[in-house]
């Protein structure tokens, strides 16, 4: 039996750390990387008698998320205690939301398989969300360097998390990764999470099962704590193969929680359903129900930035970009902001060449330098002038690349019109003077009789070689379209 006889069913639970300055129930700082326990207040270490006080900023971020995914922002939600013992869980319970979460429903639409073709060509996928709820993070147990004992660092304890739970709507690891990437971009876009996966600010748990098409849902296993998209893909792929092999070998899948080992690329069992905790959830009597008044929601709504979905639709419908371009340019808020600013300066008629430049030379340079596009030394306004000069024929596209390099290296300074300054200083203006171009062509033809003979013998390639020679002789400044036309006329004439 082959892989294609099975349907894969995946649901994701993502823990997004909210970027509040202080913790969800205490005033301690949430900054990453401090010495152990220096950011653990009396509330965070659960001294006798201390009480939680909800951080409004965390709630506001949850509202923003709910509005961004078209979910119901619950007018009333309830914090509950999830009870279990662990040394890095100081109270012996985690404050979370259970029966009444703050965000209910919503959808995320993503493109899967972008850049592929044929049967695997890109398609749009909409994933339903079950809920998103607020909760506090636990601390960390440190098992090294304590002379046989374990250390506890409670700096992370009480850090606000939004746990975002999807329906089991994804049918491949590619869909899961596309969803996770879109979600990751969204939480950064609406500025509720820094998205730093190395620091654990965005962690995925994947619920994976397989079934025969049309059959009821299979038994799922949950892969915990995947902190990169690559691991997410690898872990799901391994898990799917393992589940199929297990069933085809006559085995049964037992509900379990598993861990992914990036070194071996395999998942291994952490605990079975039998070992599952009874968390004894009940409403936390230390916290009142969370009431979100319509006015609060309306204010957050009024402060929302344009969302990637809306921006993408605008790029396609109003600016005439392809779905691929629009998707790429809205992949992150930084790229979208840069692109929008470029078009704002260059004008909407230049939206397409601006897109090519942002996705092409700018992206390549930024990636090579491993920097964020928002710190690009070439500003959107400078880029807009450059694109304008290419489009209006002042310089050729190839010279444009040269000017871009110069801009990137700081030539021309910060001035918006730096591109013009470079063009003038280096004499890069395109030559549109037919007489001058013809003179160059005559020189080139005279010096390259061999190529002329080859062209006349039917070798089309020779034509390109001659164009190249003419461009070279003009130091790239000859208008390439004109060169083509004039050269053709001369050779045929």
């Amino acid at each position, binding site marked *: 039996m082959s892989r294609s006889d099975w349907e894969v069913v995946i649901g994701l639970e993502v823990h997004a750390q909210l970027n509040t300055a202080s913790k969800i129930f205490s005033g301690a700082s949430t900054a990453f990387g401090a010495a152990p326990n220096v950011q653990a207040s*009396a509330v965070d*270490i*659960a*001294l*006798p*008698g*201390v*009480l*939680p*006080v*909800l951080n409004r900023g965390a709630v506001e971020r949850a509202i923003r998320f709910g509005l961004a995914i078209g979910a119901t922002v619950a007018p009333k939600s309830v914090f509950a*205690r999830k*009870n279990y*013992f662990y*040394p890095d869980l*100081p*109270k*012996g*319970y985690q404050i979370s939301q259970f029966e009444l979460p703050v965000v209910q429903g919503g959808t995320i639409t993503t493109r899967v398989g972008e850049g592929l073709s044929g049967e695997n060509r890109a398609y749009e996928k909409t994933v339903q969300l079950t809920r998103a709820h607020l909760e506090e993070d636990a601390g960390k147990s440190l098992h090294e360097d304590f002379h046989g004992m374990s250390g*506890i660092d409670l700096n992370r304890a009480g850090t606000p998390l939004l746990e975002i739970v999807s329906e089991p709507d994804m049918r491949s690891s590619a869909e899961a990764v596309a969803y996770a990437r879109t979600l990751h971009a969204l939480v950064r876009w609406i500025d509720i999470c820094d998205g730093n996966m190395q620091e654990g600010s965005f962690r995925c748990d994947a619920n994976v099962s397989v079934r025969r098409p049309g059959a009821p849902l299979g038994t799922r296993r949950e892969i915990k704590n995947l902190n990169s998209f690559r691991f997410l893909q690898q872990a799901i792929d391994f898990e799917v193969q393992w589940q199929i092999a297990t069933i085809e070998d006559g085995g049964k899948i037992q509900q379990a929680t598993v861990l992914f080992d990036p070194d071996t690329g395999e998942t291994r069992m952490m605990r079975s359903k039998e070992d599952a905790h*009874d968390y*004894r*959830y*009940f409403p936390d*009597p*230390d*916290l*009142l129900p969370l009431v979100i008044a319509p006015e609060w929601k309306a204010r957050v709504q009024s402060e929302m930035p344009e969302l990637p979905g809306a921006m993408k639709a605008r790029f396609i419908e109003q600016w005439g970009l392809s779905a691929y371009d629009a998707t790429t340019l809205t992949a992150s808020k930084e790229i979208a902001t840069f692109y929008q600013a470029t078009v704002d300066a260059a004008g909407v008629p230049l939206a397409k060449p601006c897109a090519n430049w942002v996705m092409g030379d700018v992206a390549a340079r930024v990636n090579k330098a491993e920097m964020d596009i928002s710190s690009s030394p070439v500003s959107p306004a400078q880029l807009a002038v450059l694109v304008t000069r290419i489009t209006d024929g002042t310089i050729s596209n190839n010279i444009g690349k040269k000017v871009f390099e110069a801009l990137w290296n700081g030539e021309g300074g910060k001035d918006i019109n730096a591109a013009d300054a470079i063009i003038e200083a280096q004499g890069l203006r395109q030559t549109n003077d037919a007489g001058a171009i013809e003179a160059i062509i005559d020189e080139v033809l005279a010096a390259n009789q061999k190529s002329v003979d080859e062209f006349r013998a039917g070798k089309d390639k020779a034509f390109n070689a001659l164009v190249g020679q003419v461009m070279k002789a003009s130091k790239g400044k000859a208008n390439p379209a004109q060169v083509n036309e004039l050269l053709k006329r001369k050779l045929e004439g």
Partner: protein
Amino acid sequence: MINASLTELRAALDAKRVSSVELATLFLDRIERHNPALNAFITVDRDGALAAARAADARIAAGTAAPLTGIPLAHKDVFCTEGVLTTCGSKMLSNFVSPYDAHVVALLKAAGAVSLGKTNMDEFAMGSSNENSHFGPVKNPWDTTRVPGGSSGGSAAAVAARLAPIATGTDTGGSVRQPAALTGVTGIKPTYGVVSRYGMIAYASSLDQGGAFGASAADCAVLLSAMAGFDQRDSTSLERPAEDYTRELAAPAAGDKPLTGLRIGLPREFFAEGMADDVRAALDTALDAYRQLGASTVEVSLPNAKLAIPAYYVIAPAEASSNLSRFDGVRYGHRAAEYRDLAEMYAKSRAEGFGAEVKRRILVGTYVLSHGYYDAYYLQAQKLRRLIAQDFQAAFAQCDVIAGPTSPTTAWAIGEKADDPVQMYLSDIYTIAVNLAGLPALSHPCGFGAGNLPVGLQLIGDYFAEARLLATAHQYQQATEWHLRRPG
């Protein structure tokens, strides 16, 4: 000075007839002399008290004294006190020195009150007799073979024996009112949310409420005024303007009928079977006195009150089982000396650190919250809670305050109910419904039963009726002398 009211102490301090240091020394010496017999204090903080008294004297000299500046008091050991042992009556916290002050402690410190020390209590405030303390039972000053009630038994006994003029307590199911009744002092539990729970070690968060003990309603009013008020660190603290609970104490112009127009509701269910004869007799006499003062009485009904105990013994243990999870031996408190692994460290530390009643309630609470039982127990209990609260609202449509017994009996012998938890639980039958509804209530002395043991009368008010309750009890105390009696 030992028996002086707060008004008298205030006047003496302000007139420099006595200094705060002298007053503190007087009570500290009394504690030294009498505490061995009563066991009302777990910790006596002589140095801290004298330092606070010196500061209070300076403040009085500077003319900036507040009503409690220089007045000695005792804190129930459930309140965290910075730099002072805070045990909650448990072996689990027998080594815990709090690094911070509870909100109540901080308020009273700021008011210039002088804390003499920390009073004994049932472990984690679970109990009705003070026999559940790791530090041994508290003895009733009226008869040291008897219990003082609980869980704030140490505070009640300390005030009754005049080891402190006033004391703080907490009341989750009657833990201020019942020991007040059994030791012949006045004790008030305000509306839930009036006193901040920050730094008050939690037993059952939705029921716990700080309260005040004094020899009289007037003394309680002064103490409560200084303890109460909004605290942003407690999300269940009520955001209301601060109140002066003494404001209604001054007698109205009705002469010898100051309570004219007051309708006292008498719940039929409270005056049915179960109340001891001597308690009933004292209560009847007290109600006559109230009528003499101009009040009228009307029968009311609290049909669901009988369900208060079962509801309470689901909700309180459920919350407690979770609240007490933090006592795991990891960060502070008792940790077993030897263990093989993490699970054993937890098990042994908690098995050794908690007493029998605490373990019983953790087990009950864990059970009622378990998967498959939650709906049948916890949710049902929450429904009962709403019904009980509705009963009170219906009753308050007919009356201004509700009166009845605080405890079905006077103080019983130490050990008498120690092996029968259900009998022990039933001793809170009149007080528990008030906590479930979140209402204010007080207990004041109203006579003596067999063996010269004090009887308490409970007054229950509608939400935020503290000032009225205190004024009502105050009028009674102006006309009677029960609250002036002292154990021999």
